[in-house]
Each structure stands twice: as C-alpha cells, then as structure tokens.
C-alpha cells in the first residue's frame, strides 16, 4: 500500500524500448546522440521551448538537456519538465558550467546527473539506460510538502543534524532551526556519526569542509551511497562548480545554499528536505530515484577516511534510519 503523495506509473505502464528526449541547440550534437542511441526511441529538438511539451507527449523516460541555449537555459527546461512530467529522469549535459547554473540544477531542476561535454560514449549510454530503468520502476515523490499533521509527527520523530565547526554559523542555525526541529550539532565527522548512530536523522546540514580544512564531502557521499533516503542540505561559502557537480553526481545533495545563511531559504530547504525524508520513509522504493554511484576515485578516497568512519556509516542501524521495519 502506497502512502499519500505517491504516483506509481501503473496506468499505461511504459513498455517497449526506452524513450529518451535530447535537447541541444546544436543539431550536430543531436545527430551524434541519435546515432549513439540508435537502439532506443529517440526524440530530439533544438528548440528548448518545445521540450516540456515533447517530454509529456511522448511520455519519455529520460531527458538529456544542454545547459546553454539561446532561447532558454537547460536548468529552466528541466524545472518545467520536473513539474509537468515528473516521471522523467533529468540529466544536464553541458560544455561549461558556471556556479549559478550548477546551483540552479540542484535547487530547482533536481537533476539526477550532471554530465560534461565531451562525454564518454559508454558512460553516457550506461547512465541513460540505468536512469530509464529507474524511471519505469521507481515511483515518484509527487511533492515534498507535508500536511500539518504529518509535519508535526515528522518533526518530533526525526532529527536534523548540523555538521559545522564555525560557532557563529552554528549560533545562526540554532536561532533559525531550534524552535522548529530537533537539531543536533556536530563539530567533526566523528561526532556526526555518533549522532547518526543514536538518533533517527532525516536531514543532514553540512559544510563542504571544516574550518580546519577537513573535507566533509567524502562523508556526505558515503552517507548517500549507503543511506540514500537521508536528505542533505549543503551550506557553503567556498562553492566551486566542480565540487558541486561532484556533490550532485555522487552525493545527490538535496539543496545547496551559499553563506551567509538566510532565514527564509534555510527554513524552506530544511522543511522540504524533511518532507522528502518522510515521504521516502513511507515508500522506500522511490529512493532509487535519488541513488548515487561513486566513482572509483571516490571509493578509493573513502577507504582512507579516518577512524573506520566508512564501516560505521555502512553499519548505521536501519531502525534508526526509519526503514526496514
């Protein structure tokens, strides 16, 4: 039995070959992609304004969209497709990405993956086919918004963990979040894991690195790898486009905020992050839509994480994560 707010693509359950929509203002890119995907049903357009309509009309499984196009930005195309055809998995394919575009693709487009041009054929094929399977098999979380009652239950049952060693930012977050959620603070990855081991935690708010320069993204990636239903909100001032892209592809970060933290956007992000966790808790099958695959580089870097953090992340009890009951 599915909880409320889920849509299983049961009616007209998609069958037959995978259906993919490619959007790029360069016609030769589209021809190249068509040739690469000649065994699947390909739809393509050079006009981004037509993309949302085409995605819905052909009930496509996956959309692969360029970022920089004269009529419309890829992020905006994907945001519209997310609204009018949410079943499709969204992939951004881009030649160069500025930070604004990357942040938009997280916060508004909720993209599944971010791929750089020139792409690697076998990787792109693998990615699109995997995304297509997920799109057909995993249900959608229609909305991360909770009803008043759900919200009350979620807020009393589920904790919010803040990983941040800057006391001013801690204080600021305490002011914003303490009145509404069960907030716990951690200065280090070590302490964060203790919190995760002891309390059901639905939202992790984190910097990308501590003030002392310890990289936190490895831990965030590992957390997502083994516990994809926990929603991560990254708050940073040292944002660099490449770090954010990696956090999307390997960390499926839910929201990305730039310091200084503003009350409004912070509350909104944490609210919907908690909503996302709560919805996924009720329907664990939908979690596949937010899964990650770590690159070999990340995997080998993770084995060098201190204090066997990795094995502790892996061993986090399902009971505290609210699933598997």
């Amino acid at each position, binding site marked *: 039995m599915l909880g409320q707010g889920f849509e299983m693509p049961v009616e007209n359950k998609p069958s037959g070959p995978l259906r993919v929509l490619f959007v790029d203002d*360069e016609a*030769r*890119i589209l*021809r*190249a*992609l068509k*040739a*690469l995907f000649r065994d699947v049903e390909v739809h393509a357009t050079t006009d981004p304004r037509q993309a949302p309509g085409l995605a819905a009309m052909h009930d496509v499984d996956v959309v692969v969209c360029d970022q*920089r*196009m*004269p009529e419309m*930005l890829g992020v905006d195309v994907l945001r519209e497709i997310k609204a009018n055809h949410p079943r499709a998995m969204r992939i951004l394919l881009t*030649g*160069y990405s*500025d930070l604004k575009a990357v942040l938009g693709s997280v916060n508004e487009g909720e993209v599944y993956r971010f791929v*750089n*041009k*020139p*792409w690697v*054929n076998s990787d792109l094929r693998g990615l699109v086919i995997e995304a297509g399977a997920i799109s057909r098999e995993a249900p959608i979380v229609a909305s991360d918004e909770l009803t008043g009652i759900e919200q009350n239950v979620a807020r009393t049952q589920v904790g919010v963990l803040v990983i941040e060693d800057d006391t001013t930012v801690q204080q600021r977050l305490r002011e914003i979040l303490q009145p509404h959620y069960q907030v716990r603070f951690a200065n280090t990855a070590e302490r964060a894991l203790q919190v995760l081991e002891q309390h059901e935690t639905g939202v992790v708010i984190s910097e990308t690195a501590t003030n002392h320069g310890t990289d936190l993204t490895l831990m965030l990636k590992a957390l997502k790898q083994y516990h994809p239903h926990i929603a991560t909100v990254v708050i940073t001032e040292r944002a660099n486009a490449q770090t954010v892209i990696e956090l999307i592809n390997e960390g499926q970060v839910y929201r990305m905020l730039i310091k200084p933290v503003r009350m409004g956007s912070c509350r909104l992000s944490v609210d919907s992050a908690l909503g996302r966790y709560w919805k996924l808790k009720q329907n664990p099958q939908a979690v596949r839509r937010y899964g990650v695959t770590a690159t070999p580089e990340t995997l080998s870097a993770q084995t060098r994480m201190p204090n066997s953090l990795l094995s502790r992340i892996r061993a986090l009890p399902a009971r505290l994560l609210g699933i598997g009951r």
Partner: protein
Amino acid sequence: MAAISWIVTLLLLVAIVVLGISLWRLRADNARLSSAHSQTETELKQLQSSQAQVIHTTKLASLGQMVAGVAHELNTPLGFVKSNVEVVGDLLDDYRKLVKAYDAAVQYCQQPVDLMFGADKSSLDKLVKHVEESRRKLFDARNAVEKSPLLTEAKELLGDARDGIVQLSALVQNLKGFARVDRDGIDAMDVNEGVESALMIAAHQLRDRIKVVRKLEAVPKVRGMPSQLNQVFLNLITNAAQAMEDEGTLTVATRAGNNQVEIVFSDTGCGIPDDVLPKIFDPFFTTKAPGEGTGLGLSIVHKIVKSHGGSIKVRTTPNRGSEFTVVLPVESSARPTLH
C-alpha cells in the same frame, strides 16, 4: 682695547655657538627629511607592488574568463566529433556483419554445383529446391547490404565530425590570433580579425541572451600590438555584455575615416549616469560590488588606446545604452609610443 678684544672674543664665541646650533638643527632636519623620504619611498613601493598585483589579478581574471569561454566553445564540437568517430566504428562493425551474411549466402549458392555430380531423380528435386532457396537467400542478403542505412549514416556522422574539426581548428586559430603568443610585438593589424577573435572569446557571455550585429567594413590596417588591442576589444565587449542585464543587442561596427579607423561598440544596456561618466577611465574606479571588479578594465583600455596614438569616445543615454568608439590611426600615419 682689552675690553674690545674681550667683546670680539665673546661675539666670536656666540657666533660659533649659534653656528653650531644651526648646524646641529640642519643635520637633524636632514635626518628627519631623509627618514621621511625613505618612508615615502617604501610607501610608493608598496603602492606600486599592490597596483601590480591588482593588474596581475585583472589579467588573471580575464584569462580565467577567456579559458572558460573557450572551453565551452571547444567542448561542444569536441563532444560530437568524439562521439561520432566512435559510433562510426560501431556502424562499420555492423556493416561487416551484413557483408559476412552475404558471403554466407554466396557460399550456400555454390553448393548445388557439388550436388549436381552424381545426381539422381530425387536429389534433382532437392537441387531445384536448393536453387530456389539460395536465390532467395542471396536476394535477401544482397538487399540487406544495399539498403542498409549504416554506410549513409556513417558518412553523415563523418561529415559532421569533419565540420566539427574545421570548427575546432578555426577556434584554435582564433585563439592564437587573439593571444598572438607567436609574435608579441608591433605589427600591422586588421582590426576586423581582432574584433572577431574577441567576440569568439566572449561568446559564452553573449550567446544566451545577447544578439550580436556585425557591421564590419573593409578597413586599412592599423599599426600596434595585436594582443593589446584585442584586450581592448574584449574589455569593451565584456563591459557591454555586463551593461545589458537581461537581453539586448551589441552592435560592433568598423569603418575607415580620415587616415584613421573607427571601431564602435554599442549596447542597449543601462547606460552610464552623468556623475559616473567623468570617472570611468580613472584607475580603480568601479561601480561593481567590492571584489567583483578591480576598476582597471577601462583604465587599461584607455592606456592601451592612447599608447597606440588613438583616442576613445563615449556616448551614453541612461537606460538606453552606451556607445564606445575607439579611433586608431592607420598603419602609415601611426607613431606609436609603446612601452
């Protein structure tokens, strides 16, 4: 008499004391002066080094911008060229399979010849069947080879790849033309080429939202340092792009005048307010937020144009747009004072 000599001695003594005191003062003054001087010198050095640092940062920033822009322009053609070349390989493999199938059909057709030797009534019937079957197989295989879209597709993809490579080499050519790393010095220069390469470098800032209109006439060459003049064009194009917050049109025109060449950049942006206009060429003047601009862009533009014996004019209407006109003397008349 003794009194007089005593008075003279006293006066002499006083004079010596006064002289000594003023000498001592002079020396103190001198010491103060020289310490003040060395302090000023240190301050000047500090200022100069921080100015050099800012200029260096500005150069790095525009280099970063350039790399980003070029990366984007290169990655799109690279994307399809690389993919196409790989896919054509796959297509050829598929085509080879069709040819193999055809060969197999040909083999099958040759078998009846063997069967004819030592044929009896029943095997003749088999033979007829075999011949019919082989005709069909051969026909199908031949058809598959002939009608296969694989080669046409491969040819199209290779055509695209060739276009992409032409595009890539034009970009690289342009880039070399822009930086002029191969010949850094004074040279006769076609400003239209410079404008084109600057537009290419700035393309990623323009292509999403700004329409570029080119009105480039054939103009005589100017004498100067191409890498510096290209920097001027890029700065003016970038400024125009930043002046247009949403959409807009950038018109770049070149025309020949009286022994001079004019290069005009007009935008449909926010314009420059009256109180800002007199300061735009001042070093370190900026209207951008701290950390976003060094305020050196236009002052460098101004300096480069002047060192080429040229001038720069601005016309602006708030909320309608600005027009920057660079005037450079043509090759024969120029007397550049470059440093």
